[in-house]
C-alpha cells in the first residue's frame, strides 16, 4: 500500500510536468511521446513506456490546440493508459482503448476550468488594471497559470489511485472482440490525424510531395528521418529556385526528386 502511495505521488508529478509545458515555453512535453516514457520510468518499465507513448502519440496525432479548439487531454490519457498496460501486462491496444475516454473526460474538466475559473481570473485582472496595480496582475497570472495545472495533475493522481483496480475488474467482463477491435482501431487512428494535417497544408500544387513521401517509405522502406532529410533537399531546391525568379516554371522542380 505504501508503494502505491509513492507511485501516486510520482505519477501526479509526471502529469504536473506535462501540464506545465504551457508555462515554460509550449515545449510540447505534454504529448504522449514524452509522458509515456516518464510514466514508464516511474513504474520501472521505461521500454514499455516508450512503446506505449509512441502508439498513443499516433492516436492523438490530430490533437493540436489551433485557434479556439481544445483537443482532448492527452496527458491524463497517456498516464492512465501507460500505467495500466505496464501494471496489467495487457497489449498496447488497451492503452488506446483507455486513453481516449480518460482524455475526453479530463478534457471536460479542463474546459470547465477555462470557461469559468480562468475567465474569472481575467476579470480580476481587469479590476486590477483599472487601478493600475500591475503587481496584482502578476500574482493573479502566476497563481492562475500554475494553479490550473495543479488541479489537473491532482485529478490524474486521484484517478490513478482509485481507478486502476476498477479498470482491471472492468476489463475481465469486456468481450475479447472489443479489445481486439481497439487494437485494430489503434492502427487506423493515425490516418485521421494525418488527414487532418493534410487538410491544413495540402494544395493541388503540393500534392506530388505527399505522394513522393509515401513512395519513398512504402517501396524503398526509407525510415522517416531519411524521408525528412530528402524533404529538406527538395525544400531547399524549391526555396532557392523560387527566390531566383518568381516567373520560373515549377514543373521542372518536380522532376528533380524522382
Amino acid at each position, binding site marked *: 500500500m505504501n508503494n502505491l502511495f509513492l507511485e501516486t505521488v510520482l505519477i501526479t508529478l509526471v502529469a504536473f510536468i506535462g501540464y506545465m509545458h*504551457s508555462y515554460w515555453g509550449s515545449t510540447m512535453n505534454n504529448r504522449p511521446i514524452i509522458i509515456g516514457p516518464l510514466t514508464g520510468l516511474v513504474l520501472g518499465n521505461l521500454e514499455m513506456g516508450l512503446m506505449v507513448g509512441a502508439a498513443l502519440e499516433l492516436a492523438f496525432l490530430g490533437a493540436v490546440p489551433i485557434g479556439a479548439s481544445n483537443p482532448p487531454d492527452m496527458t491524463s490519457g497517456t498516464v492512465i493508459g501507460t500505467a495500466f498496460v505496464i501494471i496489467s501486462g495487457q497489449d498496447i491496444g488497451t492503452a488506446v482503448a483507455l486513453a481516449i475516454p480518460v482524455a475526453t473526460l479530463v478534457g471536460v474538466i479542463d474546459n470547465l476550468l477555462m470557461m469559468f475559473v480562468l475567465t474569472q481570473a481575467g476579470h480580476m485582472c481587469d479590476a486590477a488594471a483599472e487601478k493600475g496595480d500591475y503587481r496584482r496582475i502578476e500574482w*493573479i*497570472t502566476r497563481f492562475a497559470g500554475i494553479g490550473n495545472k495543479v488541479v489537473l495533475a491532482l485529478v490524474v493522481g486521484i484517478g490513478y489511485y482509485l481507478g486502476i483496480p476498477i479498470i482491471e475488474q472492468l476489463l475481465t467482463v469486456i468481450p475479447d472482440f472489443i479489445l481486439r*477491435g481497439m487494437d485494430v482501431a489503434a492502427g487506423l487512428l493515425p490516418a485521421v490525424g494525418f488527414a487532418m494535417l493534410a487538410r491544413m497544408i495540402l494544395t493541388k500544387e503540393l500534392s506530388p*510531395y505527399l505522394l513522393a513521401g509515401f513512395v519513398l517509405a512504402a517501396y524503398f522502406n526509407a525510415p522517416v528521418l531519411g524521408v*525528412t532529410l530528402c524533404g529538406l533537399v527538395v525544400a531547399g531546391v524549391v526555396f532557392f529556385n523560387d527566390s531566383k525568379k518568381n516567373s520560373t516554371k515549377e514543373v521542372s522542380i518536380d522532376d528533380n526528386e524522382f
Partner: protein
Amino acid sequence: MTTNSKNERALTKKDLRQVFTRSCTLDSAWNYERQQHINFCYMMIPVLKRLYKDDSAAMSRALKRHLEFMACTPHIVTLLAGVCASMEEENAANSDFDESTISAVKVSLMGPMAAVGDSFFWGTLLTIAIGVGVSFSSSGNIMGPILFLLIINVPAFLVRFYGLRIGLNNGMKFFADASNSDTIARITKVASILGLMVVGAMVATTVSFSITYEVGVEGAMTPIQTYIDQIMPCLLPAVAFFVMYYLLGKKIKTTTILIFLIVFSCVGCYLGIF
C-alpha cells in the same frame, strides 16, 4: 512609423529578458473569453513598468489595452511583443502618439501571425518531430523523446529569441518588408513541402490495417491481405488515409469519425474479417 534608434532606448536588457521569459507562459492561463490575454499582459508588464511607473493613469490604460483579446502562436509571440514594446516606447516619449494605434496594430498582426505560426509549429514541425520520434520510440529507443523535444524546441526558442529583437528594432517595417518580398509565403510553401513528404512517409510506416480473412479451397487458404500486398505495398493504409481526408472535407466531426472507426473495427473483429 518612426522607430527609436538603439542608443536612445528606454528599455533595458533586463526588461527584455523578462519579456522573453514571461512569453513562455503565454498559453498557461488560456480561457474562452479572451484566450491568452492574461499572459500577454503579464509578458508586457516589464515594459510598462519601465515606461509608466510614475504615471498611474497611463499605466492603467496600458494594462487595459494589453488585457484585450489575444490569440497568437505562443512560439512566435515575442515578435508581436517586440512591435508592441517599440510602440509603447514611442507612446511614452511622444505625447502626440495615438494610443489606439497600439491596439489596432496588435489586432491586425495577430491574425496573420497565428495563421503562419500555427500551421508551422502545430502543423509541419510537430509532424516531423512525431515522425522521427515515433520511429525511434516504437522500438523502445530512448532517442525518440529526446529527438522529439529537440526538433520542436531548437527552432522554437531561436524564433522566440530573435523574434523579440526583430519586432523591437524593426517594428512594423518587418511586416511591410516581409509581405513585399513574399518571404513568409515562400517559407510557408517549403515548410508545407517538407511536412507533406513526412505525412506521406508516415501514412506508409505508421498506419496499420490488414484484412486477415482467408479465402480459397479447404486446406489451401490464403489471407486476402496476401493478394492486396501483391497489388501495392501499404495499399490499405493509403486507402484509409484518403477515406479520412474525404470525410474531413465533408465537414464531418472528428469525434464522429473516431466513434465510427472504433465501431467499424470491433464489428470487423467480431465477424473475423480483421
